[in-house]
């Protein structure tokens, strides 16, 4: 059988995505050729902002590498631009002289950045933000120049501006309107966004009309219609995109704003199709990723002659990819006379949510500060849920059990629905992979389907799909998870073997338990070292080579390879002479930054590795373990010593706890605080263990976290005396040390095993006594590492470079 010849013009996300679908439907039916004008394989354009922001490398955003084309027998012509289509003879021609014939032709020529035709727009240093080359130009410019202007306060402009800030440039954003992202946000959300971005260091010049770009050869500034001038060494135009239709237009294919297509993505010419940003469907041109995938699926079926529902348009929704700012917008976002709104506006928490309803159906939403409801809201829009039938307040409530409501939303999703927007993986694909290949973790799904491989924003959703398919088995599967890919044994199994066979070194564990990598990996080595240490505190000799750099060198490594030093300062209390000593050391070693940490300690940042032992010696203070999976700080408020509200002496309590438990290793870092009264100035509610003084006693909270997994602590117990606080603290820490996975913070652990279970164990005085006994043994053998290193010449040498001998 002769293969049909399929030619794709445009090697971008939309076209290649469609080819992937076709390969799935009919792997051996087509001989495929792809033309791309950029010199790269297919990459994820929406993640360019992450590359610019330094969160991803260009290699990280490649969707299909060269191998993929080869393995699928696809002829790829990069750096070639198709200039002519002969629709009679079914031939395409490129500027490089290549001619290909086709049976089916897909146009996925995407869009071009819209460039303002300002005088001076041709100067060096004026670019768009559209492809890898632009991205590289911006990174390059940031090394030489300081000041950038981004023209355009839309999605793309703001992402570009954030990226430039990360590259340490000063950034001004120029916008002709009064509101940022005016095509996605209402004025309230827009103003909140502006305030947040200003706090991140962006400058805004609103309602400014650009008139002329200044400079000789290279740009030096921008003049506005009102006569004012803003200096710049780099100008990014991000004012919009326009469908790239030149090729279609010049070759007699019907073009309006985009290439006109019907509900099956067919153009006015037989056997020629268009998909993605270049296509215009029912008067709409889409510049977002979800519609591309939806179009690609319909087109793939059409080309493979499979039955398919028509494409009837997409609901548009947008998320801003800027760190620290959660913005989501879908469908209609401006109130109008015939819509009614459900609104939440918490100015203290910086949260704004608005859902627009027409005829009792959700037609759009704007979420700022908390976008966790976005999937549910989109689902309601797609399903045309009647809001009269549900409790309206709950529409915008962020339910405590987000998992449960999320589960319901996931279960209601159709199989075609896209879970991973970056890689276009549908729910059906994931479900199928779980069922057919027996996958039981998010990692497996990532490896097999590519879902959550790029930005990771859909990870929770993927986990929910997994759970909805496997039910209870998902949890069992999660518990059975091996500690790393070097073994099939879980943490529990490894610990049981270590105890039973009395294994005492990492090497021994790997050898006896049949590790498939002789010396393990960066995941299992530190974990095993910890488990051995925890089980045999007196016997096990700490294995430096199995420690992550921070714990091996006893200092935090920073992004430039320097280190930071945080000496211990019990309870956050210091003295004038100690402060003087710290200041003198900082001056002597020219420490670039002295900073107070969130845990009330002083951080010396930017220290050279070889200076570490000298600095420790001169500070003559113990290590604060700010680098360790260990007790970090015990933050305190002023308490009854000075505070007129303080009911308890929180400072002394904090100092006592810190002195008792310092240096102890825990599965993950462990933060504590003591507050003298329920006003809680030491923020005890978001610590791994927080103590709050109340009239006549103390409350102990556990499992709190102020970090990524923001979580308020649970009340573990109320006690009367300082001794009891110590006893419960020791018992809780040791129970956590013995039972959590390595790397698992208490916030996750408490949720996993359940507070009630922990309380049940710790309620028994005899159990508490035994746990305390074990932690006391572990504490008894610990010494201050800084002092040891300062005194030990051999270890100190590791901090020095090797001298060249000859």
């Amino acid at each position: 059988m002769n293969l049909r010849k399929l030619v794709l013009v445009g090697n971008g996300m939309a076209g290649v995505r469609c080819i992937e679908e076709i390969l799935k439907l009919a792997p051996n039916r087509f001989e495929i050729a792809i033309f791309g004008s950029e010199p790269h394989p297919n990459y994820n354009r929406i993640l360019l902002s992450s590359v610019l922001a330094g969160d991803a490398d260009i290699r990280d955003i490649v969707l299909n590498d060269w191998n993929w084309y080869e393995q699928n027998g696809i002829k790829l012509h990069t750096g070639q631009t198709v200039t002519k289509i002969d629709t009679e003879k079914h031939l395409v021609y490129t500027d490089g002289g290549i001619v290909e014939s086709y049976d089916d032709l897909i146009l996925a020529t995407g869009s071009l950045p819209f460039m303002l035709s300002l005088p001076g727009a041709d100067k060096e240093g004026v670019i768009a933000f559209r492809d890898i080359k632009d991205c590289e130009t911006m990174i390059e410019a940031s090394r030489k120049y300081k000041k950038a202007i981004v023209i355009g306060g839309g999605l793309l402009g703001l992402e570009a501006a954030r990226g430039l800030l990360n590259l340490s440039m000063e950034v001004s954003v120029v916008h002709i309107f009064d509101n940022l992202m005016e095509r996605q946000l209402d004025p309230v959300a827009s103003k909140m966004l502006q305030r947040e971005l200003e706090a991140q260091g962006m400058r805004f010049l609103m309602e400014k009309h650009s008139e002329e770009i200044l400079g000789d050869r290279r740009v030096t500034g921008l003049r506005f219609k009102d006569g004012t001038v803003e200096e710049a060494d780099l100008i990014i135009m991000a004012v919009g995109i326009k469908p790239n239709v030149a090729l279609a237009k010049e070759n007699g294919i019907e073009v309006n704003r985009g290439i006109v297509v019907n509900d099956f993505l067919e153009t006015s010419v037989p056997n020629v199709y268009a998909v993605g940003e270049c296509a215009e469907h029912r008067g709409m041109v889409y510049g977002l990723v979800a519609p591309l995938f939806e179009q690609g699926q319909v087109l793939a079926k059409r080309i493979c002659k499979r039955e398919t529902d028509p494409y009837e348009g997409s609901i548009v929704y947008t998320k801003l990819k800027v760190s620290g700012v959660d913005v989501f917008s879908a469908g209609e976002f401006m109130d109008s006379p015939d819509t009614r709104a459900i609104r939440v506006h918490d100015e203290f928490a910086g949260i704004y949510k608005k859902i627009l309803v027409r005829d009792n159906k959700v037609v759009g939403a704007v979420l700022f500060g908390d976008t966790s409801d976005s999937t549910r809201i989109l689902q309601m829009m797609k399903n045309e849920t009647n809001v009269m039938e549900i409790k309206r307040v709950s529409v915008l409530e962020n339910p405590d059990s987000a998992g449960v409501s999320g589960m319901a939303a996931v279960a209601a999703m159709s199989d075609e629905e896209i879970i991973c927007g970056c890689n276009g993986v549908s729910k059906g694909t994931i479900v199928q992979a779980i069922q057919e290949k027996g996958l039981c973790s998010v990692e497996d799904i990532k490896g097999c389907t590519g879902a959550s491989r790029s930005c990771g924003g859909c990870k929770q959703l993927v986990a929910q799909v997994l759970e909805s398919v496997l039910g209870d088995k998902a949890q069992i599967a999660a518990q059975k998870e091996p500690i790393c890919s070097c073994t099939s044994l879980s943490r529990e199994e490894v610990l049981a073997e270590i105890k039973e066979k009395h294994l005492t070194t990492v090497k021994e564990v790997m050898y006896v338990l049949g590790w498939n990598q002789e010396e393990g990996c960066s995941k299992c080595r530190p974990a095993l070292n910890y488990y051995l240490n925890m089980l045999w505190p007196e016997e096990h000799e700490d294995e430096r080579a199995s420690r992550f750099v921070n714990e091996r060198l006893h200092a935090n490594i920073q992004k430039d390879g320097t280190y930071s030093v945080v000496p211990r300062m019990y309870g956050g209390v210091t003295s004038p002479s100690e402060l003087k000593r710290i200041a003198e050391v900082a001056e002597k070693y020219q420490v670039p930054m002295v900073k107070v940490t969130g845990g009330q300690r002083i951080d010396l940042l930017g220290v050279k590795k070889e200076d570490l032992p000298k600095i420790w010696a001169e500070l003559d203070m113990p290590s604060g373990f700010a680098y360790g999976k260990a007790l970090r700080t015990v933050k305190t408020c002023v308490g009854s010593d000075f505070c007129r509200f303080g009911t308890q002496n929180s400072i002394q309590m904090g100092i006592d706890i810190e002195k008792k438990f310092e240096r102890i290793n825990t599965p993950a870092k462990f933060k504590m605080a003591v507050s003298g009264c329920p006003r809680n100035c030491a923020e005890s509610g978001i610590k791994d263990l927080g103590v709050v003084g109340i009239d006549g006693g103390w409350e102990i909270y556990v499992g709190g976290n102020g970090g990524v997994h923001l979580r308020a602590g649970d009340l573990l117990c109320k006690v009367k005396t300082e001794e009891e606080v110590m006893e419960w603290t020791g018992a809780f820490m040791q129970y956590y040390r013995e039972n959590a996975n390595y790397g698992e913070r208490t916030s996750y652990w408490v949720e996993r095993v359940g507070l009630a279970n922990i309380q049940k164990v710790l309620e028994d005085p005899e159990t508490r006594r035994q746990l305390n006994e074990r932690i006391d043994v572990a504490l008894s053998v610990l010494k201050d590492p800084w002092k040891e290193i300062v005194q030990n010449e051999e270890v100190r040498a590791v901090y020095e470079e090797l001298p060249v001998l000859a």
Partner: protein
Amino acid sequence: MKSLEAVKVEVAKLEDLPFQTGRVVKLNGREIAVFRLSSGEVRAVENRCPHKGGPLAEGIVSGNYVFCPMHDWKINLADGKVQAPDDGCVITYEVDVKEGKVYISM
């Protein structure tokens, strides 16, 4: 002729190199990470991960590989190749050990 020949430089005594741990040496303005593997062999690569420039000498060494301390890229110390799913390469240097002395060829 001399410029064509690799220059051997003595950088350390074997005993200065702890097992499974990297040390840094600066040669001709280049920063090189020197490792003594558990097998006893010595390896030398440029001290810079191709990803974000992480100092490889500070990574965890397993067998013939080092894991970059910054973002955990895995690098083969024999041929300098970054292991999948990441990719890239670091420069490797030839190492000779004679009579307890370690030489690097530049």
